């Protein structure tokens, strides 16, 4: 989830400081405090997937600071621990800053004793000192420092407390005293058991905790969120809130405002006029009266109107005088004109689509996602869904990529790395590509759903859920390998920090826009060329029997599926155009068939590339080879079932 490591940062040797610690103890926040460079911070264990490095200057000394994934021990087994081990081996002069959760000294000290075997200069940072105090715990830092033989510093990273003291303590760092293990243990487990015994002795001398009185509201909320009955209610409320904010407010209000109010009424006409001025050739643009209604949603069918405005503006469609033949230069200009502001134009289609439709939806989604993530709710959600996910050969931990998939499937495919076995990664990747609609597509699909009866909408959702389970179950049965065991730490519920949520949303958006906008532009340009060269009609004619015969849809929709190969939300927009308007081409039954088929398509070309990158080209082709025929199969089945029921 992090930005990739920058090569030039590592080139320069010098003093190196490595942040090491258990997952979810605040290494990334501390890293930001030390270096002023932002990495994704969250309240879900395992968010730092890659190593991030930045330079910092402590009292005039240039230091390279490296953030590592959270580890619970230094064993060879987990990828994260191996990464950290290799990193420490590469920088053999590095100072280790071990970051610990002050409330969870036991586990931190277990890691300290493991790190002690490496004999590196170490500073122990007890982070979250405020939460320790809140719980009535106390740690004798001086005594702890004496026993371990390393400086011990208390910090509150989100408030930037203690960073100064940490920087001052760095030069005093030294290897932990003595040898902690009498003999080389037989295996890791035996070694860790022996270490835990020693940790208990240290804790007895340095740590005290007064019994908590009644649990606070936060703690109680945490319990409710994973309660078998209340937890389901909690889940329903959370999902409803997401639906309201993203589906209704983001995809409704904000999109109306930006798409109609800003782009179609203001930007597009200005762009068309500007292009016409620079590249003149004889033509007149059509004008259309575009209505704008901005309203705040109260429920899926009720809303509170704020603004309504209607403007007469020019649109990309134009007419050429029939009797004049264009000179070569004018033909070139017409080509460029169409490339920029034509019906498949970069400005009129790609940019307006990416910035006015996708951006608001994705922004609201990432915002909500960040809030949920920081509150610590996802771990509890993982507990709630664990049993259900077992059916699909996954465990509860897969909930994070699945929910993120509702934002962007491509990004979610990348985060499947947090899953432990290849089998789980493959299943999750497959389900993401097949049946989880991304937020861009969701927005369009929600608009389409408005044209359906409620029963149709429920059928669509039910079918998707059924497909997810059926395909997940089949894949898990057919794909050899093990599902990893569900052992998950439950972090305490925390109030999300506004700054952190905003920064995280921004970081995700930044990634999204950088990845997605070029694909939009290139995709639209390819589409434009295909249309110009006549390929679109050829492919449409070849695919027509499938679409008209098997799916029972009008021939024009072939284009939508064709575009769907590029981006499935693009394809959905085509269907939306055909479904809504003065004289809709599609009947509700056909809308449903088209919706089902386009939802099951692979989301976009970027997702295909990401699968190839993460799982290999062969897996990507196999998935594509399954997904596209499967989408048509299910779509056709829905069509024939519907027709059979009607007659």
């Amino acid at each position, binding site marked *: 989830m992090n930005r990739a490591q920058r090569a030039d940062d590592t080139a320069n040797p010098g003093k190196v400081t490595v942040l090491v610690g258990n997952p979810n103890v605040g290494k990334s926040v501390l890293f930001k405090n030390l270096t002023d460079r932002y990495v994704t911070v969250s309240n879900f264990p395992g968010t730092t997937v890659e190593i991030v490095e930045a330079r910092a200057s402590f009292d005039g000394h240039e230091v390279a600071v490296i953030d590592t994934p959270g580890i619970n021990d230094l064993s060879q087994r987990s990828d994260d621990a191996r990464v950290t081990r290799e990193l420490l081996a590469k920088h053999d002069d590095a100072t280790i800053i071990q970051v610990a959760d002050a409330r969870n000294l036991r586990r931190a000290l277990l890691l300290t004793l493991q790190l002690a075997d490496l004999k590196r200069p170490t500073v122990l940072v007890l982070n979250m000192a405020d939460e320790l105090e809140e719980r009535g715990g106390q740690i004798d830092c001086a005594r702890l420092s004496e026993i371990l033989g390393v400086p011990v510093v208390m910090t509150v990273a989100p408030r930037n407390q203690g960073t100064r003291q940490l920087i001052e303590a760095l030069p005093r760092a030294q290897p932990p005293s003595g040898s902690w293990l009498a003999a080389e243990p037989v295996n890791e*487990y035996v070694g860790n058991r022996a270490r835990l015994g020693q940790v208990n002795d240290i804790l007895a001398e340095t740590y005290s905790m007064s019994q908590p009185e009644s649990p606070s509201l936060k703690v109680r909320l945490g319990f409710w969120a994973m309660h*078998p009955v209340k937890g389901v209610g909690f889940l329903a409320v959370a999902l409803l809130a997401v639906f309201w904010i993203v589906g209704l407010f983001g995809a409704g209000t904000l999109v109306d405002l930006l798409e109609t109010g800003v782009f179609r009424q203001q930007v597009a006409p200005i762009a068309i006029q500007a292009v016409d001025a620079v590249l003149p050739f004889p033509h007149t643009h059509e004008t259309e009266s575009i209505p704008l209604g901005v309203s705040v949603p109260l429920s899926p069918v009720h809303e509170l109107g704020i603004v309504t405005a209607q403007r007469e503006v020019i649109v990309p469609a134009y007419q050429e005088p029939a009797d004049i033949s264009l000179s070569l230069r004018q033909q070139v200009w017409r080509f460029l004109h169409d490339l920029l502001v034509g019906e498949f134009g970069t400005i009129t289609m790609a940019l307006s689509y990416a910035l006015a439709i996708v951006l608001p939806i994705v922004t609201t989604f990432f915002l909500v996602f960040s809030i949920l993530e920081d509150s610590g709710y996802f771990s509890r959600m993982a507990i709630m869904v664990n049993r259900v996910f077992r059916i699909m050969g996954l465990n509860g931990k897969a909930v994070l990529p699945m929910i993120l998939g509702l934002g962007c499937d491509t990004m979610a495919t990348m985060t499947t790395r947090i899953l432990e076995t290849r089998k789980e990664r493959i299943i999750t990747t497959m389900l993401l590509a097949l049946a989880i609609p991304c937020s861009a597509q969701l927005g369009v699909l929600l608009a389409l759903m408005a044209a359906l009866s409620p029963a149709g909408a429920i059928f669509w959702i039910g079918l998707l859920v059924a497909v997810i389970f059926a395909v997940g179950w089949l894949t898990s049965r057919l794909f050899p390998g093990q599902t990893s065991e569900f052992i998950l*730490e439950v972090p305490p519920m925390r109030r999300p920090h506004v700054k952190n949520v905003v920064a995280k949303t921004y970081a995700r958006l930044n990634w999204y826009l950088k990845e997605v906008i070029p694909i939009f532009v290139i995709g639209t340009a390819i589409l434009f060329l295909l249309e110009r060269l006549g390929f679109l009609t050829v492919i449409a004619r070849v695919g027509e029997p499938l679409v008209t015969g098997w799916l029972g849809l009008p021939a024009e929709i072939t284009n939508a599926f064709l575009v769907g190969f590029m981006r499935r939300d693009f394809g959905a927009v085509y269907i939306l155009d055909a479904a809504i308007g003065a004289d809709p081409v599609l009947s509700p039954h056909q809308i449903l068939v088209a919706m089902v088929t386009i939802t099951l398509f692979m989301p976009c070309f970027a997702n295909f590339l990401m699968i190839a990158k993460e799982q290999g080209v062969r897996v990507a082709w196999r998935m594509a080879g399954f997904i596209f025929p499967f989408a048509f199969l299910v779509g056709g089945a829905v069509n024939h079932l519907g027709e059979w029921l009607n007659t």
Partner: protein
Amino acid sequence: MAEYLNCPLCGFEFEKLDTLCAHGCPLGGSCNFVRCPSCQYEFLEHQRKVSWLHRLFGREEAQKPRLPEGIVPLRDLKRGEQARVICLGGDNGSRHNTLAVFGLVPEAEITLVQQLPACVVQVGETELAVDPAIAREILVERLA
């Protein structure tokens, strides 16, 4: 590592090396039968099923061990009960180590937070969720 087989007829456990039924058997390597050295019963070493069919419809059998007085699987604890871990069960070293780094080792004292939908225990200051299947194998002793 030697592979051990169990005779389905008499229950005798023996090393796989002892299973050659007769030297000079014309079937040679293509014979899938093994013979129990105790009762001479011949049986198929592996129940040969088409592997994907097996994965599709096969089910693993649950086994229930007999336990000494006062010791119960973690799964049987009630909400809020305190217990001491006796053993982590199973022979899965990586699981043992995963549990150990969270502080769940024999002798650790735990409080049960909930059983459903997944088993959540409090070990020291850590709340840890484990799959019910794992909780069934961890044995604990109830504390008064």
